[in-house]
């Protein structure tokens, strides 16, 4: 036994010189048929691997179940959030942080989605979008249909930003533009909003790419929306964009129910 060992030592002397003592102890243990150290090490390694796998799988499962409610300030995101979750009406103020809750979709499979309501204020919206966009499965862009005509440029700018961000994600999320506040008489229809947004985005992609480059000169050319040379249309985008009308406040004000069946159906579809 001893001679065999010494010969082995001689053979493996060149390479792996530093690990030699460990290898020796390992061999001794194996030969002694009492591998306590080895078994302990193996057990710890197995446990760690299991933990890593479990976490990986679990986070994957959870990561892509979020539906983000985005939009300009005062477009009705928080009220829509409340209506989807409880069906009641609540007073709301300007949101400063996000709110999230698990929403049970009413289809026969009974899946659940995480609804996340992001603040719409100009100074916060991009920060929160950055934070949550990786876990987004779908975007719901809420538009105030009544004051759309006045705000079309701001809506288009934010929509442009959200589209660029979502196209940069590795799994293309579903996209819905919800034309909210249809209960007001002056509200524009979804068709009209779509046409206006297409026209506006057409101009916007030219001006945004012509803007002076940003400070840190990270010369990343901003992605171009749609096809060059042709008028912009939502159908040209790699992700599916749908439009629908809804009203978070509902026809009968605070007491009545909201007119959000279309939205619920869409959520059930993508779940």
């Amino acid at each position, binding site marked *: 036994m001893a001679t065999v060992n010494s010969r082995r030592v001689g053979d493996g002397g060149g390479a792996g010189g530093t690990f030699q003592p460990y290898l020796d102890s390992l061999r001794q243990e194996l030969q002694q048929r009492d591998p306590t150290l080895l078994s302990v090490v193996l057990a710890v390694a197995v446990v760690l691997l299991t933990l890593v796998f479990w976490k990986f799988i679990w986070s994957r499962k959870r990561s892509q179940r979020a539906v983000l409610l985005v939009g300009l300030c005062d477009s009705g995101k*928080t009220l829509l*959030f*409340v209506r989807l*979750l*409880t069906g*009641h009406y*609540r*007073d*709301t*103020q*300007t*949101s*400063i*942080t*996000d*709110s*999230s*809750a*698990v929403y049970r979709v009413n289809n026969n499979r009974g899946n659940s989605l995480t609804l996340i*309501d992001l*603040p719409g*204020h*100009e*100074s*916060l919206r*991009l*920060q929160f979008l950055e934070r949550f966009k990786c876990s987004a499965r779908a975007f719901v862009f809420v538009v105030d249909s009544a004051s759309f005509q006045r705000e079309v*440029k*701001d809506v288009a*700018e934010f929509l442009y930003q959200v589209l660029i961000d979502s196209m940069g994600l590795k799994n293309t999320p579903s996209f819905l533009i919800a034309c909210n506040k249809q209960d007001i008489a002056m509200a524009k229809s979804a068709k009209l909003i779509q046409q206006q947004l297409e026209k506006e985005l057409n*101009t*916007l992609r*030219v*001006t*945004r790419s*012509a*803007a*002076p*480059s*940003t*400070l*840190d*000169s990270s010369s990343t050319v901003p992605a171009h929306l749609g096809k060059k040379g042709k008028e912009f249309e939502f159908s040209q985008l790699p992700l599916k964009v749908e439009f629908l009308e809804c009203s978070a406040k509902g026809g009968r004000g605070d007491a009545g129910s909201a007119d959000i069946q279309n939205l619920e159906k869409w959520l059930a579809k993508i779940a």
Partner: protein
Amino acid sequence: MLDFFTIFSKGGLVLWCFQGVSDSCTGPVNALIRSVLLQERGGNNSFTHEALTLKYKLDNQFELVFVVGFQKILSLTYVDKLIDDVHRLFRDKYRTEIQQQSALSLLNGTFDFQNDFLRLLREAEESSKIRAPTTMKKFEDSEKAKKPVRSMIETRGEKPKEKAKSSKKKGAKKEGSDGPVATSKAAPAEKSSLPVGPENGELSKEELIRRKREEFIQKHGRGMDKSSKSMKSDVPKEKGKKAPRVWELGGCANKEVLDYSTPTTNGTPEAAVSEDINLIRGTGPGGQLQDLDCSSSDDEGAAPNSAKPSATKSTLGGMFGMLKGLVGSKSLSREDMESVLDKMRDHLIAKNVAADIAVQLCESVANKLEGKVMGTFSTVTSTVKQALQESLVQILQPQRRVDMLRDIMDAQRRQRPYVVTFCGVNGVGKSTNLAKISFWLLENGFSVLIAACDTFRAGAVEQLRTHTRRLSALHPPEKHGGRTMVQLFEKGYGKDAAGIAMEAIAFARNQGFDVVLVDTAGRMQDNAPLMTALAKLITVNTPDLVLFVGEALVGNEAVDQLVKFNRALADHSMAQTPRLIDGIVLTKFDTIDDKVGAAISMTYITSKPIVFVGTGQTYCDLRSLNAKAVVAALMKA
């Protein structure tokens, strides 16, 4: 008296609302959120909006906001305390609902807080009412009634408050007759310890004063005492004849007294000196003095002893505190954040942020973080740094759209030129950056008219003429279908700038130019006539964009410049909503390495976005702001 009281979550859900008047409270509260909380001006907790004063309190642990509103003309003193009480009660009562992460518990919970709130309001109002005037004490309650009558008998010619020295003799004579009185008159010269106290065992104020006086006299040596005593004893003897007055300090022509040749070491002075030394050393002659010294020495002995164990305790506590801070959830308090915030404030100031803005920012961050529960493995420093970084990015985000090309296209459609005015102090780079911006516009196919409204500085018009020639060479009319793309409109020197601007805009409209860039003379913000002239130019011509050009090298001056420029524009404007500065051009950005604090100062003061950043002196050195890069440079150690 309150107009309203709202409790809502930071996510936007109103949990409970009390409305004293019929107007809805959403408007003012939204204004509060937008102007204060989102612009990081959360240092002090009150805000005025039209006719209302709003006071608010943030609960950072459970992400709630408490807002109370009342009329501005009232000055209610109980409001702060009321908010604190309501906060505490609400938090304790609904702890389970508000503790959840998900918003569902907030939505499903019913917050029936009306009765509690009304009770707290009533208590607060009552406590603030003027207290009833104190009723006079009855005679039985006063101290005088407790004294025996005999102690208060005063006989003629003898006042209980006489000086001890003179009354000693009289007291000695009358000792038999007034027992209690004599006890209060002890002579300090007798070296006896003072009496324990008058018989009734109570020290009245007068006796206290007298005792103190005696101690004082004792301490300052007997010599003076003796002389005064002898003097006083002289006075009654000589009362019969009018003796010439002897002034103490008047000096005397006595030969013996003036003879200083005698050796100083004679009896009296030495004794006095030794006594003084004794007194200084603290082992006084009289028992009274001893007591005092003992107690004081005891105190001194006790104090270092107590300091030592507290020192050891604090080091132990510090170690545990550090460990506790590293693991586990503890909520942040102001003391924890104090040192970190001070360091961050100094760091910001070192990075060229204006001093009072750095102070306000740190206040606001402290307000936002107070009471927040930190996650595991996050230190106080990292939490504060994270929050500060978020606030800085928030400040730098533009509050309105920053897309000049889009607006120019709009103006094009409406067949009128888009007018941009550049203003700023001397030497910041207005003319250079104007040339850069016109180059950028030319590259994008817009025709530009440059209006030389700087009629004061030598060579200003020539400078612009040179720029126009060069730009024209880069974009000749042949390349753009025969249309002159860039032209200079000037009327020489010494003319009125507002008039030239008006003519330039009319000319542009006639000739079909897309953009008019108006260059004004640099002026100091304190120079009133020049500021008036600038305000007149802007009011008369109503440009589409008023750009303030500021250099990135400026430090605390930025605050002063912007405030005064805005004020001048507001004062001299006739309109309902005066035209103020719409955007900022930050120049000479390449000269600062990472001391980028001027960007923060300027956007914080005006809440207007930084539209362009100038990074050099050639035509291509025009950039737009990247908030994240600037904040990263700012927070870099």
